[in-house]
């Protein structure tokens, strides 16, 4: 990654605390223009917290979020507000992220009212109608209220609202998790089309590993508030190097044969989100079948194990044989 200067977003050592609990514990990564980065990990691993901290919807305890060279975390309110035009988010629950008393057309128009106040009403209505059609809804749908439309349609509205300003970064926080399998494909394809047309960079959070595999250029795996593995999807899914990634892949219920090398019966015990506060060592060690003595004393750094493949594991250079744990 010689083009480090071109990174659109550079997150450095970001840390978010909720009281004594550290939800995000020093995350660094970069996002380039037009790139899609998938972010996976179990509930409580800090994915959503990281997303919100990047947009400064949450207060970070430490670190920086450089957006085109400027730190968003220390930006003055007016500056932050101006930048937010380019930073949009689509939330998981489409219904609760829309105001129940606002017509969906008005919800899509709101970013325009805020960021393009000079626009006359007719032009604004034209842009909203065009956006509705872009997301596959009839322009006449704009007069409806959120409760009058289906979950899939609500999510299309959420996407239309996020995309109407042609943002440079779109964060999608589990955008399809509450939707049916058959609608999921439609919504994801819509996101991909919009991204291609507008050149938007995307941070795509999901616990659906198969979806992330198909649409990401790079995938970040989070565990207990830290990034434990970064790789291109082909490398990550064919040869995961972190034991947690291996276990995560093995947990996907498959109706097809599992990918080669995925341990068949690697059991993950109850996710220890609260295990995010180990004093020292690797947070995963207690669930890890490969743990050594060093894992309890030293936190493994995120290091490059192969070109473009970063792993935070003391044993990342060994060829770990898939183990199955005793039941």
């Amino acid at each position, binding site marked *: 990654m010689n083009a480090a200067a071109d990174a659109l977003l550079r997150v450095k050592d970001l840390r978010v605390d909720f009281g004594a609990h550290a939800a995000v514990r020093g995350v660094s990564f970069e996002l380039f223009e037009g790139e899609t980065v998938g972010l996976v990990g179990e509930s409580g691993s800090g994915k959503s917290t990281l997303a919100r901290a990047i947009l400064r919807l949450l207060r970070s305890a430490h670190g920086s979020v450089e957006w085109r060279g400027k730190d968003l975390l220390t930006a003055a309110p007016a500056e932050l507000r101006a930048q937010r035009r380019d930073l949009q988010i689509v939330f998981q629950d489409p219904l609760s992220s829309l105001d129940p008393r606002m017509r969906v057309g008005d919800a899509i128009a709101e970013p325009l009212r805020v960021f393009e106040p000079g626009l006359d009403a007719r032009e604004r209505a034209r842009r909203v109608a065009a956006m509705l059609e872009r997301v596959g809804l009839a322009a006449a749908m704009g007069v409806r209220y959120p409760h009058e439309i289906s979950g899939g349609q609500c999510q299309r509205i959420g996407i239309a609202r996020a995309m109407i300003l042609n943002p440079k970064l779109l964060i999608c926080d589990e955008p399809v998790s509450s939707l049916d399998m058959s609608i*999921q494909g439609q919504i994801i394809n819509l996101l991909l089309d919009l991204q291609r047309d507008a050149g938007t960079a995307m941070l795509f959070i999901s616990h659906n590993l198969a*979806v992330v595999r198909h649409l990401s250029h790079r995938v970040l795996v989070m565990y207990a508030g830290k990034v434990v593995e970064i790789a291109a999807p082909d490398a990550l899914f064919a040869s995961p190097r972190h034991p947690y990634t291996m276990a995560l892949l093995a947990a996907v219920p498959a109706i097809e044969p599992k990918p080669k090398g995925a341990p068949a019966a690697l059991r993950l015990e109850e996710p220890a989100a609260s295990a995010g506060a180990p004093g020292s060592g690797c947070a995963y060690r207690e669930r890890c079948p490969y743990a050594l003595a060093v894992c309890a004393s030293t936190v493994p750094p995120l290091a490059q194990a192969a070109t473009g493949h970063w792993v935070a594991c003391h044993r990342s250079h060994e060829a770990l044989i898939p183990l199955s744990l005793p039941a």
Partner: protein
Amino acid sequence: MVPTLSIQDLCISFPRRGAAIQAVQGVSLCIAPSECVGIIGESGSGKTQVFMAAMGLLASSAAVSGSVRFEGGDLLTADTAVLNRVRGSKLTMIFQDPMTSLAPHLKIGTQLAEVLVCHSGMSWRDAWNSAARILARVRVPDPKRRLHQYPHQLSGGMRQRVMIGMSLLCEPSLVIADEPTSALDVTVQAQLIELLRAMRAELGMALVLISHDLGVVAGLADRILVMYAGRIVESAPAVELFSHARHPYTAEMLKCIPSLSGPRLARLPALAGSPPSPASGLWAAPLHRGVHGSPRVAAQSDRS
């Protein structure tokens, strides 16, 4: 052999603006003792309503016809006293969201023990001990301490284990699990699927697994029923369904599952259009077995 659950020609409709919305139209199915049947279908296909009718949990405005027999006795015409003897003991249900299906202000132990006090006439002390045993059985660590905790003190996966334990307290003949893992992430989901499998092997109850996630159903079910627009459109042994789906809708749905192996795709396969609205003519018309999962309507007019 008397089937555990036998449903004949079940129709459910809800009145709306003077018209009747047909949610389920003529569903017949049979579940044998100890059988595990998966029900798959999109939201709105009627899969939950069929079993809510069996449990007597439909909204009071629903109009129901047909018959639902549980171990030979008709449930639709049964009065509440009879229903209450069956529900929660021999016929139990696990819901999607364990946070809202457990009472937030009662200890886990109270909620579990209450089932045994009501259904088996146990003393609270015995019931409390049995509750601890069932928690151990569903692999909740430190069950005695957990009994004194409230639902919010447990993680989502632990809460769902408590729900599964509750459904098993009276040694049921049939457990209906409605999207039991949809609210949970993939690692917890894998544990719970494993738990349901183990419980079925130990206790031998029949299990209905309702889900829109084919992967969840594939690992557990002996037989799978596919629902679309209020009807069962395909019924087949699990292995058969995944290898040789006969109905075009099933075949299209199987194609929509993104895979963990093979070439990566620039676009995900997706079903075109949306299911017909129950209020539209398409829903009421006989199912038209066209290609590509018709009768889906174009995306543009999506339920409008």
